[in-house]
């Protein structure tokens, strides 16, 4: 197998990683692309997330659920170093991507984000044309020529091509919310990441647009690994293979910390949760 060590520092984006080998003792089949090991996140002196460990399985959807303030979005943002831009944010423990720590000193965060893309809560297309939105990531990654093909492929894969092919040069801001979110997904997959992180991608959308995105998420697992944070338990149950349940705990010093309570295959977590707190949450007794 090809050495994984310099995957992140290599500037190419087209490379798809070889079969992953992680070193940690795996409770799951060894198909994990990423793995969190004892990850804690601090904002200044405040510990927002405490000692989280979980794998992210290849070509599957991993959902993170839990009440507000449980740290699930924070954990998501550690996976591609989006917390870097928040002053005072600090990550300890290992965030492994193909066995390599993303927070190691020589790792370039921009290269991490080219391999691990992100879709946000509110659709956030740039105030540019539909075409330029999708092409943006390609251009900054130095893709020259055949831009049209790449753009079409990304829009097709995001199930948006038929709706926008006649108005590629019009403003992305004129699209509906659901279309904007699919455009953001197209923009993300245009640079061919391995992993796509989604931070409550449907929370600003109506039920029909939500259904389309969920269908799309399912389609995308053919080529991508997806991690999704959602407030909506039904959504987690519908789209994900594995679910991580987080909650906020108050410690002896009266400080709240996000903690991972349970990580299981989704059907098991929703039908036969191992932890009492998970059961209380999914049956609606709190949160």
């Amino acid at each position, binding site marked *: 197998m090809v050495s994984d060590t310099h995957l992140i520092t290599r500037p190419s*984006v087209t490379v798809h990683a070889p079969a992953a080998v992680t070193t940690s003792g795996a409770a799951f089949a060894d198909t994990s692309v990423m793995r969190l090991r004892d990850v804690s996140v601090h904002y200044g002196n405040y510990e927002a997330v405490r000692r989280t460990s979980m794998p992210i399985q290849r070509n599957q959807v991993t959902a993170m659920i839990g009440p507000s303030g449980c740290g699930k979005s924070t954990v998501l943002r550690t996976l*591609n170093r*989006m917390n870097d*831009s928040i*002053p005072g944010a600090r990550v300890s423990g290992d965030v492994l991507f193909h066995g390599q720590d993303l927070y190691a000193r020589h790792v370039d965060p*921009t*290269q*991490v*984000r*080219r391999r691990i*893309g*992100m879709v*946000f809560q*509110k659709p*956030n*297309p*740039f*105030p*540019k*044309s539909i075409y330029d939105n999708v092409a*943006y*990531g390609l251009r*900054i*990654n130095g893709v020259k020529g055949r831009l049209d093909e790449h753009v079409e492929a990304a829009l097709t894969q995001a199930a948006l091509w038929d709706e926008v092919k006649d108005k590629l*040069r*019009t*403003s992305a*801001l*004129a699209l509906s919310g659901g279309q904007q979110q699919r455009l*953001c997904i197209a*923009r*993300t997959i245009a*640079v061919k990441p391995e992993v796509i992180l989604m931070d409550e991608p449907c929370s600003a959308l109506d039920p029909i647009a939500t259904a389309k995105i969920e269908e799309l998420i399912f389609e995308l697992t053919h080529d991508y690994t997806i991690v999704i944070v959602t407030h909506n338990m039904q959504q987690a149950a519908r789209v994900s293979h594995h679910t991580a349940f987080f909650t906020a705990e108050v410690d002896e010093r009266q400080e709240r910390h996000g903690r991972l309570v349970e990580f299981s295959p989704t059907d098991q977590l929703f039908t036969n949760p191992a932890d009492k707190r998970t059961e209380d949450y999914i049956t609606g007794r709190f949160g």
Partner: protein
Amino acid sequence: MTLTNPSPAAEVAVRRRGHGALGDRVFSWWTLGTGLLVLAILGLILVTTVREAWPAFDAMGPRFVTERVWDPNPATGDAIFGALSFAYGTAVSSLIALLFAVPVSVGIALFLTELAPRRLRGPAVTVIDLLAAVPSVVFGLWGILVVAPALVPVYQWTHDVFGGVPLLGRLVGPVGSGRTFMTAGLILAIMITPIITSITREVFGTVPRADKDAALALGATRWEMIRGAVLPHSFGGIVGAVMLGLGRAMGETIAVALVIGGATNITANLFAPGNSMAAVIVQQFGESTGTFTAALIGLGVVLFAMTVLINVFARVVVRRAEARMKGGVA
């Protein structure tokens, strides 16, 4: 149809809501009043200056703006009042100012909003704002006593090196004193940098976190993020800031009067002395009478008209750009 012809009861309900809030009405009249006041003052300025300038407009006709000669006291014949040379000086010195000030200001603003460590931001902003507090006469004196003499060798060198280049060589012609279009432009650049910086800084501050995150999540470096997310979002605001700076540069009087050289001159040579409309007014108003005074006020009218035109033009540019970004059809 109830929609087009509401029942009397509905009408009463609507009226009562309209009359109910006294505070709203007071507020509405107050804001309308202040808005109209601004327009009234503008109108009054325009009317009275045109009236005061009328003898000169009447004597010169359209030549007032097309004539380059300005001779209030000719040895023979009638006085000639042509604003063209001074309009040229105003335009050239202001453009030079923008050329230098805009890149510097935008750079400072980007540095302060995107790059500078938090604890450096406050002091840096204070220092730049202090620059705006320096009285313009101080800039003028500094310009004439320090900057102008110091720039002579620089101008000379530039002329020696680039003077032979086609086209460019005409801009860097023979050097006289240091009091030139270029010196005026440079002093103006320093004077308008604070206002452009502070407004663009505010504008950059309004770029949504979401837009920046979108770029970063695609693997953009900081500069790529600025180009892809910050600058497109800020275009209208930057143009607005530049317009305010331009307005200040065009209207600047005493600093320009001191360093521009005081010659009635239209030349491509930026190292030659010239004069601007505002500078001429302040230099000559004290010794003017009759039609001469009217002509100086006429310069003011022309300056006023130029600023208004430029602002309208900028509005159109910004509106077009924003329509392309936000509207349906590009």
